[in-house]
């Protein structure tokens, strides 16, 4: 059994093998793998006995369930109104400048992926972003440099 297979089996043991278990299982795989590979989607389909197309169709509905290979740290910068007003662009420039990647790309070392996202619910502390599940608010280019440098050593 491959590590992903046993991860999926464990998740299915925990959440059940019904259709209602699909989202938690997908989330569990993404938590560890950062994305859903073809292999893991097929294995999930097999494990809970639903069509693979359904797994794909459901996963792609949700912005946080990526089906493209992602880096270890996924940076999601909020692009909705308040964050846009409060300097999201400068934040993005700072990140792009440090990591040398554009939105939607992953660094060559597979460490960082950069994405934009819709409202994070942190509008009073805009601009905001997530790195994996961590929240960062009131961002400035200076703050970005600190945060990203920190992650570079992780």
């Amino acid at each position: 059994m491959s590590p992903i297979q046993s991860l999926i089996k464990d998740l299915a043991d925990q959440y059940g093998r019904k259709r209602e278990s699909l989202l938690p299982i997908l989330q569990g795989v993404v938590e560890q793998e950062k994305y859903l590979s073809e292999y893991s989607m097929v294995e999930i389909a097999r494990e809970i006995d639903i069509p693979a197309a359904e797994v794909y169709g459901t996963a792609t509905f949700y912005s946080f369930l990526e089906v493209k290979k992602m880096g270890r740290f996924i940076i999601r910068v909020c692009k909705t109104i308040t964050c846009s007003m409060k300097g999201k662009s400068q934040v993005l420039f700072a990140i792009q400048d440090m990591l040398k990647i554009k939105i939607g790309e992953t660094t060559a070392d597979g460490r960082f992926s950069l994405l934009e996202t819709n409202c994070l619910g942190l509008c009073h502390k805009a601009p905001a972003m997530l790195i994996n599940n961590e929240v960062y608010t009131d961002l400035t280019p200076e703050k970005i440099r600190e945060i990203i440098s920190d992650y570079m050593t992780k």
Partner: protein
Amino acid sequence: MATTYQLKRADFVFKNENDWEQVLSSIIRRSPQELINELISSELKGRGGAGFPTGLKWKITSELKADKKYVICNADEGEPGTFKDREILQRVPYKVLTAMAACGYVIGSNEGYIYLRGEYKFLEPELLKVIDEFEYFCKEINLDFKVKIFMGSGAYICGEETALFESMEGKRGEPRNKPPYPSTFGYMGKPTVINNVETLAHAFTIFKYGAKKFYDLGVQYSRGTKLFSVSGDTPKPGIYELELGMSLQDFVYEFGDGDTKAVQVGGASGFLVPRKKFADTAIGYQGKLTGISLPTGGSMMLFNSSRSMFNVLDNYLEFFREESCGQCTPCRVGCQQLLIGIKAVKRGERPATYLDKLLRLTETMQYTAKCGLGQSVANSFSSIVENFREEMIY
């Protein structure tokens, strides 16, 4: 003419009195009917934005016979400019849990879920601890009620209640046809009460202090207090609990930066109010308080004169173009048309009168979209284009 309502601050939701155990114990000593009456007489309406009377919701589901019923707390707070639910779950989660248990007791359900948006994943560990503690207490007082967290994964539309059920059932979060409504056919096809986080927090207040205390606040048809998420061009962004019925004028006086040009009430799916209508606009569910009354989930975004309303609208429409579930024609194609339409007018590729064609389209979207969100996505378009037409063209 405009009546002046002073802003009335309140402090119920976040007041931390550490007495939820007593409140819950006293709740289950009362009859379900008594609790429903309490809620109905408080005139509490849903704080998620739609404003359905909460007591009635509980009542309908309590009267149905079913082998299984569910209580669901809608914490899929995705409306741009809204962040109150996160704060409630962070600061006073036990109030929400207590109200969920009360609802379970009233309708005859022993299973509750909190549908937590994926963006708030960081709340989960702490919340799980509180739930553990809470369930332990329920057991102590012989109340059979369990709460689970169901995590979302980044989809605005899952805040629509039937889309939320679909999502919990492991499917794409596409809203269902209504009827049937959740009260009779909800999660897994079972009778379900689904309430917004804030609604449940207010229900706690009502059960603790009695309906009258709540009813006495606010104005007719819009009783009680409401949490407002204030953001944008304001010196004091944050969450404020205010009595309903306030005039937008007073609100701007308190929260504006002295140069407020417009306020977006109710998030991207709400309405934009220009300065000249501040005095005539009241915040509440219905009734002729002043000129216009606007219901809201509590998002208040302020814009000062440095902001281009075109850019604001562009941002909203981009949001909806991506976050529409995509199943129904008016919302899926309508949002795309509105977005490329304003760009085309701005670039001079379409005449200014094309805006009128798009305004008529927003009516169709309102009349024909499958779900409540689809019906309201065009609100921002119509209110911005009607009030700032010149900014769309030049």
